[in-house]
């Protein structure tokens, strides 16, 4: 199956996770580990950049659901950015735009964090 990888960079006190490849039931644990690690290190301001993500399955969507509550309880948020139309459609279908802040550009999301 196709590959999936992530990379995390720190921009101020905001952590940006870059997704690359195919996010499905098999590759989801990689992203889960990223979230767990960030939460363990008390980093609750998280931006996920979808620029290089080719595909996301329903199990991939579940990852975001799993962590949003504990992040928000700690006055943080998970903001999603740079989605391709295809990926956005999948999020949109499920009503994710009602639950998450989704931005066109990574910078907008970071700015939003700094402002708040």
């Amino acid at each position, binding site marked *: 199956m196709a590959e999936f990888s992530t990379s995390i960079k720190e921009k101020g006190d905001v952590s940006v996770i870059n997704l690359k490849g195919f996010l499905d039931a098999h590759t989801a644990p990689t992203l889960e580990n990223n979230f767990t690690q960030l939460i363990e290190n008390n980093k609750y301001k998280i931006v996920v950049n979808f620029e290089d993500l080719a595909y996301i399955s329903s199990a991939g969507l579940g990852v975001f659901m799993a962590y949003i509550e504990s992040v928000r309880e700690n006055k943080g948020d998970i903001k999603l950015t740079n989605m391709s139309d295809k990926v956005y459609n*999948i999020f949109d279908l499920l009503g994710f735009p009602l639950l998450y802040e989704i931005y066109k550009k990574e910078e907008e999301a970071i700015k939003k964090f700094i402002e708040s």
Partner: protein
Amino acid sequence: MAKTSKNIVNVQLQLFFLSAFLIFIFRLLLGTSDTLLSKILFDSLIACSIFFLLLALIKFENTRSSSPLSLVMNVGILSAIMFFIIKFSDFLLPYLFDNINLKLQNPGLGYNIVSLFYILLFIGFISYYLLTLRHLFYLNQGKNVKIYFNTMLVFFVLSSLSNNFFQDKSVSFLGNTFFIVAVLLMIFNSIRISWMAFLSKREKIYLLILSLVISVLFIVNISSSSGDNIHSQIIDGFSPSLSQFNTIVMVYGSIYFFVLFFTTLFHLPTAEAYDRKAQEVTSLQYFSKLITEVLDFNDLAETVTDIALKLSGSGAAWIIWKEDGKLISLANKNIGYVESDKLSLQITERIEFEKLNVTKTLHLKEKINEVDQGNRFSIISVSPIKTRGVVQGILVAAKVDGQIFTKDDLSAIETFSDYASVAIENSRLLEESIEKERLEKELDVAREIQRKILPLKIPDYPGLQIASVFIPAFEVGGDYYDFFEISKTKLGFVIADVSGKGISAAFIMAEVKGIFESLSKTIERPKEILLKANDILRSALDNKTFVSAAYGYIDTTEKKLYFARAGHCPLFLLRDNDFKQIKPSGLGLGLSDNNYFDQTLEEYSISLKKNDTIVLYTDGVTEAKNEHLEDFGDKQFSEILRAGFDLTAEELSNKIIQEITVFSSNHAQYDDITLVIFKLQ
């Protein structure tokens, strides 16, 4: 079987006692008759008694298997006893019988009894020696051992008899010749001792001492039988042949054990190396057996360090293993985890874990004291354990101050780390295949659940064509659809997709079916049903699982469609050469609490006309992939729908499936494909 062999022993023992009794009678009646005939008869009787005793002893010997070392030990004990008896007979017998010489001339009943027992005792000794020597000789396993030994025995007998019958000076050379031939045969038969090569070093040292003592005892016993002491007088007086036979056997014994002593002595310097090789062979045998048997990685690791420790003569051994990116100590032998961790740190500071290719030795900069055993380690060897060319672990062996790793030690350790690599790879592959099998079984179960959950038949509604297609993916995708016959004119329907795959998705499907089935019986409005379903699933599902669903019903008299969508793919309405995507707002089930879910969920209703076609589907349709991993896509799907407005429900579904099949013919189906189509007539 056991009984018969015991009987045979008894028969031979009885024959032995019978011949002993005959000897006694003979002595009583004929006394010291010196005729040739009586000599022949008497010697024959003695020969018979020895022969039968030997046979009895051989049978007894065959019933148990004793190690050569314990046989040698027995001979040692017996020869020591013999030594004491000979010495004591010198002291004791003169008290019993005033003058032996007189008694020999004119033996009374008392003397006859005592001397008979004395003789029988020595016959016993001789027989046992002979038997043990035969046993040891047969251990050589050469060709014709039996012939060599029996030829020697023949000369023993010939030499013995000639001592009695050819006493005359003119023929004494015959006796001497027989004796010399017998001695030559003894030497010939004694020089090819090989059985002691397989003993361990300790056993060899033990055997060395024992064989020296025995050969000395034999020589002493010979010299005390050939002098003028009471012992030799009694035996000689009884039968010169027996006396000679006794001497010959004793000579054979002393030669054999003397040769054994030297052979063992020459084997001693190589004993340690031999021990090591022998251990290596047994360890490798044990280990190769283990490779095929051991499934548990930890058991395997324990064995690897245990054997590596023994083979290299090291003081301690352990494995540095990489687990989740961390290096840990594993299967420690003779070293605590604190010390081994310290040493591991020293090792990984000096060599790069991933780049270790061959076995190396390292002198430690900081020597480590092991608390428990009081060892102070100063040199270690490290060997890589690799699977698929990647270093997974390092086998470490440590030696105490002052010791070194020889080339042999290192090659033994390296062999072992190679074995360990193979074994670990094997156990991993096995685990994988077990896991795969388990998964396949699980998927079978999941597919079975799914098959039972989906509707068996399509309901029959006048004025409504209904078609449905479901194509399962190999890994159950969690698609579900169902029809609910609310009334004769109202048909409810649901289509849903559980996030995730496999058996967990199948179980959630079953739960979803239960929820919709029961809700559809009491509630009519799609929004309310989805609200309730969300409420139930919100508490039932874990926080990363959700269900996308669409619920609605068609009223065939009112000609109306009521519909709500909880995160599911939109509904398509095909009407008069055009199509409409109906996508009311709504979150997936289980994603948020009912408050928010309620706010965002819209209900949609539309009046239907004749020939309206309603298409419901799951994302398996639009996300079907071709060999370039491109999606079938919304666009292609809508084009088929747009062109298919005048087809029947059945024709349209066939067309869609056909197009998808052609599109994704070179790519495995990854998700379930579900399609439900209604057409108003």
